[in-house]
């Protein structure tokens, strides 16, 4: 049995602009996660180049990539990935402790509407609340890039919308370049730009003339 090379991404050319909100749509296996991993400095392409400003992200250098993630990127995961042994506030502080110019942790939590849940442990929060803590954790260090991987994937309709509102607010108020990957096409309406991926390639690029408010999204 020989291993077969599978190209997750092929000839992708993409530029992200400061402050824009991009939604990356695609079915599973379309390559959107691989793209996000590369953008987030979790993975490097086998060929081709990726630059964040003057950082070359295509070189597999663990220390360099860790530094990039630490200084410039905020991550929001599908399953929140909070530290169960830390309270909401502490989960955010964990990141602000190592950031250069963070906002106060409680301010980040207020930004996502959790000012009254600061001292709750993850096990004491609902899924939507946990995801909003995760957003607060991601943005508290004032990252230039916020990467959200299926942020509503594990949430119900109304909670999902609350989470999207939080992301939209961060993008608008802090000017953070934001990429949301999702297979939920309805979310695309809140983006400045929508990229649709298929078989490892960007199949379609769409600019929304008028962004919808997350509150008005329906799915």
């Amino acid at each position, binding site marked *: 049995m020989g291993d077969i090379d599978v190209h997750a991404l092929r000839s992708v050319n993409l530029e992200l602009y400061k402050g824009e909100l991009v939604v990356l749509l695609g079915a599973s296996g379309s390559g959107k*996660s691989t793209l996000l991993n590369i953008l987030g400095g979790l993975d490097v392409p086998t060929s081709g180049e990726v630059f964040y400003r003057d950082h070359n992200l295509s070189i597999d250098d663990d220390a360099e990539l860790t*530094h990039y*993630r*630490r200084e410039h990127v905020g991550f929001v995961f599908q*399953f929140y990935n909070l530290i169960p*042994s830390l309270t909401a506030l502490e989960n955010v502080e964990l*990141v602000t402790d*190592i950031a250069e110019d963070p906002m106060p942790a409680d301010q980040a939590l207020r930004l996502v509407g959790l000012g009254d849940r600061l001292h709750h442990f993850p096990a004491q929060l609902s899924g939507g609340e946990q995801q909003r803590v995760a957003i607060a954790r991601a943005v508290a260090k004032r990252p230039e890039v916020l990467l959200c991987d299926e942020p509503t994937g594990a949430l119900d309709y109304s909670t999902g919308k609350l989470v999207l509102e939080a992301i939209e607010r961060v993008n608008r108020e802090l000017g953070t370049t934001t990429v949301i990957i999702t297979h939920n096409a309805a979310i695309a309406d809140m983006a400045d730009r929508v990229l649709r991926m298929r078989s490892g390639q960007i199949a379609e690029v769409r600019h929304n003339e008028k962004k919808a408010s997350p509150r008005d999204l329906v799915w």
Partner: protein
Amino acid sequence: MKTLDRKLIRDVVHLRGQVVAIALVVACGVASFVAMRSTYNSLLMSQQSYYESYRFAEVFAQLKRAPDSIASRISEIPGVGTAEFRVVADVTLDVPGLNEPAKGRIISIPEQRRQMLNDLYLRDGRYVEPGRRDEVLVSGAFATANSLKPGSTLSAVINGKWEKLQIVGVALSPEYVYEIRSGEIFPDNRRSGVLWMSREALGPAFNMKGAFNDVALTLAPNAVEADVIQRLDDLLTSYGGLGAYNRADQVSNYFLSNEIGELQVTGTFIPGIFLAVTAFLIHLVLSRMVATQRQELGVLKAFGYGNYSIGFHYLKLAFLIVLGGVALGIGAGWYFGLKITALYMEFFRFPVLRYEPGPLVISSAVLISLGSAAIGALAAVRHAAGLPPAEAMRPEPPARFRAGFVERLGFHRLVPTSVRIILRNLERRPAKAMLSIFGIALAVSLLVVGFFLYFDTIERIIQVQFDMAQREDVSVTFHEPRPANVKYDLAHLPGVIRVESYRAAPAKLRFAHRTRRIALLGLEGTADLRRVVSKDFEPVTIPPDGLLLTSQLAEILSVRPGQIVTVEVLEGARPVRDVIVAGTVDELVGLSAYMDQRALNRLMQEGQTSSGAFLMVESSRIPDLYTQLKQTPAISSVSIPEVALASFNDTIARTINVSTVILIAFAVIIAFGMVYNGARIALSERGHELASLRVLGFTRSEIGFMLLGEQAVLTLVAIPVGFALGYGIAGLITVAIDTELIRFPLFISARSYALAFLVVAGSAFLSGYLVQWRLRHLDLVAVLKTRE
């Protein structure tokens, strides 16, 4: 093979690092069990069969001199089985190749070989020939230490003259399995040995023709030992009897039985530690495995696997983890048993000491290990079996944390967030944390106790006994008590700088109904070479009147200072006197009763008399002195503490080195097993969390700190706990080994603590490093996609 069993094997392969760590712990437990148990069995069996086949006597008595006619009266004492009447004499020996004079004990044997009590096993050569008066047999350990063989010669002072003796055989006797002289704590086989000579040759030479001075006898069935001893004493009183005693007080048997007893205790205690650690580690690993395989369990149950087969599946897993260790342990135990037995052969002389780890020992080792695996697996197996399938299919609910004790006190602002993670993880499962601490503390305590026994105790005893108490270069004993002015003769011997005489007399001390046979030692009031030193290094002055007893002896007699004891002297005119106990002293070695030499002379109703002397000698003249002493027939024995000590150090150095290596290996394996498994399980539980942190930009060393910090805290807490535990166990040992022969001072040096710390902290660090290395392979991408 069933598919479920195939899963079992793959699970074991997957967990190989942890399986190896646990298997090593099991192997240590099994190896120590097999080695010690089987050595215990072989020693005990060899002792029993040797005593039986070579008719080791049950009651012993020494006396001054009794005519052979008394022999039949002794044989007629009700309860006496067989009796042997012998001549025993202590002489000075000149051994080829040895500068200093050696001490010999010559024991009479029948000229014609016949069955006798304390019969001889001829290891080499032949029995003495009738009519050949210069032929002797020598004892095994003495022969080996001096390379004496049939055909070798040595000289002994017999009847005031040097006689050349022909060695015709090397013999072993159940009476001298351990060749040590009464009153000594270390054997010195180079300078002290036993010789057997025909009664016809020995009797006349020591004025014992038609007489005897030593009795050994066996008891008839149903005889009452105490009765026999009493009657024997009554009979021998008028012949200078020194008091009869039983096997328990027979020196060689005392040491051998003590050793066998200790082997039994350590052979239970040491494996017990390992099996307890095994059970705990199996518990950790299986509980974690059931948690990670929760959904698989749900699927298996949904497909119809019963609770019984699921439970049994995990039990088998526990057995499989342990079995490798059992196999390794049996092999290693067998090997170490052989080695230990070989070591024992150097101290204890048996005709045969066969090492046979019997099937019972092996099967017990297997059963006990499986038992401890089963105990460890119990909770996990019950959890797996009892989990309802629907619940098992759902992921485990998120772990619940709460602010810990320290934080509720308001200190949490003082510690960084990463430290808070560590503390909360510990506080969430206090029982697990406690057991981990206890396990690591066991490793620490094992080292502390080992170093205490091997280094601190021996050093302290040597320091007190040789540096402070026995400060003479040479001590000499006279055949017969001599007038005190013999001091001046001794002072003229080559190189002698200082002489202090002493008077020693066998006596029986009586207080109320309690009695004790003891040698009264009368020292000069101004004695400086031989001093009485307490275990706290305090020299004690001997009172001008009355007795100074060791605390142990005072305890045996239940007597306090100020009370009066009856002293029955068993020598000379055998006076019986009431003497006040003037004080007690806590000594480390032996039972002693000290008096001022003049006071003892008064008690004995004699003029100034000495039994021997302690000499301080110019070291350059020592060879001349030895030559002179060998030619002084009045001296029956010469002791050289320094040489005896050096020979002891040589003998035990190897034993101690081996034991130290084994001990350190044991402790490393326990500490490694605990920390490595703890960290691996923490990695498995929190790998997802740590990978998330890596994605958020934490470096490998930062998450390494969060992961291993927990183990570091456990280890750092465990070390002082282990110190305390070790101190406690050492305390128990000092109570347990509070024998008449020796007391252990409860003193543990800073060096012992420091070594224990280094070994355990080092192995913890090593296991942490190995786990830290795995952090390289955390799958950062997976955490984005999977729920824990």
